[in-house]
């Protein structure tokens, strides 16, 4: 039983995603963001999280999913990533699920290399597949059109 892992799940474009629950600092409601002109499109803006200025990334754009319909209010997943605290925008929060290592399967080769670096693989849940995100990769900002990762 010790190879069971806890995942915090959320939905993006009706797909189920999961992030290791230890990586999630908190989930907060959407609030007005401060847009950052000249920043790559994946950057939604900056958020004041109790006095801390946190970068907010649009997970849909990060994962090359269609844009969120304007009437849908996203939720903010505050994630502790390698580069500091980052907030990821998702559609809706799901449950916390516990999964066995055995149900895991890595991403298929058919996924684009860029996406494969972000989506580690899937856990085969009973009704659905849960995409497992690499939080550090999901929190990286890439300059448009370049494979290069922006270093500090």
């Amino acid at each position, binding site marked *: 039983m010790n190879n069971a892992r806890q995942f915090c799940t959320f939905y993006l474009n009706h797909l189920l995603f999961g992030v290791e629950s230890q990586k999630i600092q908190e989930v907060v409601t959407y609030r007005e963001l401060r*847009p*950052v002109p000249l920043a790559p499109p994946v950057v939604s803006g900056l958020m004041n999280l109790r006095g801390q200025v946190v970068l907010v990334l649009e997970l849909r754009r990060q994962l090359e999913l269609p844009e969120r319909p304007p009437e849908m209010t996203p939720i903010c997943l505050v994630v502790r990533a390698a580069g500091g605290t980052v907030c990821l925008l998702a559609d809706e929060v799901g449950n916390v699920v516990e999964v066995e290592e055995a149900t895991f399967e890595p991403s298929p080769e058919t996924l684009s290399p860029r996406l494969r670096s972000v989506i580690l693989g899937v856990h085969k849940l009973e009704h659905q597949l849960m995409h497992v995100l690499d939080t550090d990769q999901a929190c990286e900002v890439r300059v448009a059109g370049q494979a290069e990762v922006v270093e500090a």
Partner: protein
Amino acid sequence: MNDSDDIVKEFLVESYENLDRLDRDLITLEKHPQDREILGSVFRTIHTIKGTSGFLDFDKLGAVAHVGESLLGRLRDGQLELDREITSGLLAMVDAVRQMLASIEASGVEGERDDTKLIARLTRLQQAPEAAGKDAPEGKAPEAGGAAVEGASATGASAAEAFEGRASGGNGASGGEVAGGGIQTKPVKASKAKPSAAKSAVKAISTKADGRDTEKPMAETSGMTVEEARPADAAEAQRAQGAAGGPSASGSTIRLDVILLDHLMNLVGELVLARNQILQCANRTEESTLGAASQRLNLITTELQGGVMKTRMQPIGNIWSKFPRTVRDLALDCGKQVRVEMEGQETELDKTLIEAIKDPLTHLVRNSVDHGIETPEVRQAAGKSPEGRLGLRAFHEGGQVNIEISDDGAGLDQERIRNKAVQKGLISADQASRLTDREIVNLVFLPGFSTAEKITNVSGRGVGMDVVKTHIEKIGGTVDLQSKRGEGVLVRMKIPLTLAIIPALIVTSESERYAIPQVSLLELVRLEQRAGHKGIEMIHGSPVYRLRGRLLPLIYLSRELEGKVTEASIAGRLASGKNIAPLPADAASEGFQAVNIVVLEADGRQFGLVVDEINDTEEIVVKPLSKHLKSISVYAGATIMGDGKVALILDVLGLAQCSSILAEGREHLPPEAAEAATGGRAKQKLVLFTGRAGSRMAVPLELLARLENIPGAEVERSGNQWVTQYRGQILPLIRVTHALEERRQLPPGEGLMSLPTTEMLQVLVLENEQQSFGLVVNQILDIVESTLEPQSPSTRAGVLHCSVISERVTELLDVAALLRTGEAYEPAVSSQ
């Protein structure tokens, strides 16, 4: 083991502080050899180090400190006169001690070192005036020495290594010392005392050489009788002594971890924000109790903020204190006499800033001594005192710290600078003749400029004034230089007090707020209604404003931040009237509303930033931007406003650079727009050089990091690329002629093979998007300010367009394309 680690750490911290003081004291002492108080302080410092090193089992350290102490003892007792040689010896000892401490800090041991030479030197110095000093002390010694020995033996210290008898009266005028069985020195080192020692209370502290953790006796004698003898831990005794020894050491100061201070600073930052928020609320309500409370909160917060800021403040004297030593050594090396005068050592500025200005200051001080101040003979010939003066002055003014470094040396030779600058191609002869003397002397801050004719071990090694300038500007400061030939140089720096909380101007653009640090702010200009239309003119598509007769280039914040709107739109609109829908910001220039211009200065250049609205000035707390956004150079950080919303802080320098990069795109103006432009032309600074067969080429000056002459022999080959080692990095070299020749006819790498390897190469070190590379050119000609007026489109890859500059057809290179070409030569050509 942890305990002992802590003790070692404490010992290191204390010793470093003591050593810094020692340097200072010794220099003062050299000037006033009779000052017993300073001598006493020096003696105590060394003694403390010696004692503690004995206790902690650092034998080598102890041995060095011991001879130093003995030498100082003789000086203190007046048996030796302090002269230059002795001072040098003592300073050498301080250096050795410092090295050992550094080694202890790094590895926990003193390291393999041989100090016998130093010890011999110090011992020799001690005995130098043998004849004069020998008889007297020997005669006087027994009394006090005996007392100390008696005191020690009475309490049973059998292996006592050294005793120090010191008058606890504190004037240090008298004392008796006995050194019994030195570690590596003679059995009886010195025994000397003045008769007056008998009258004062004599304290003898014994330290065991082998440092075994046994209790040590401490004997106190008053008069000649043992009055009190209590056992004490050696370390404790040392500490007690250290406390008594420091001039101002007392229980009123404590050591704090810097991290704790930083944390407090952050909290205060939060508090300031909360305060701003509450004040805004309070202003909106009628509730008087809330108003009163918020006013009180306001006052307290301001005071608290000041208090916490103060904890991070350090007097500038902390870094200055090293300069007398630096200057002395340097002056000796150069055969000069230099007196250092300091004023305002107590002027305080933020700890991080102190660190940041340390190197630039040191550089300027070295420059002054090395190049500024003349040798005594030259000075006398010029009717000056043989001793040069180096002045350091610091004071607060207008919320900034002013630091001035002045000397009364030869000053700068305007003519020579002018010629040099022209010769090096930094400015044109025509420009040079138009510059004022003050502008001329400030040319030394240009990259690639050095008038030093010979390279000394002090200056001329690539760390030029340009580096000083960049360092100071990086922390939001400014440097200015004034000089009068024959009368010396005055360098004035203005440094902000702190970086954590800064006053800023809040502006609005596209209904978003931005903060502009007040340091770069010069003035605000508001053009009312119709005046806006007349006030803003166009030069080749770039808007300018006549500010008191001078043309001020304008940048529209909203458009800079859009980053995609072409310059053509505005000029085109001018050409064709109002048919084109204006951009929101452009509406301003059409006279629909008032135009707000924020006049800013960056890197010595002024420009106007047009914003939608100017809100207020406010103290803002700088929050670092996430590392992902650091690559956007127009932002310096973020802050949280009183209403809890996030605002971005603009980086004025980055903004200026960003906009001039945009300026490169201007040559793509449609012809009619170009015609519509009136008056002069947009000027850009270009570096002119020749390629093959004397054909002229140019690159924008902004991309130039330095001009270098690199010997062909230093060029190495790495894969298919030519590289050179440059400032600790590998700099790829691209030869301009080959990068532009028809490469298709050459196999990859072939063109580069012919890079000459014998002659000196003239290299432009260019920086494009944080990537450095060297462009090897035939000859660097000049730096010109020229209108970028395309005469003909590009004829080949790597060239943006051809233009007539200085009456010659010149190709303007596309640096980004060149860089790609250069990369194409890399082995990566085999792209499968």
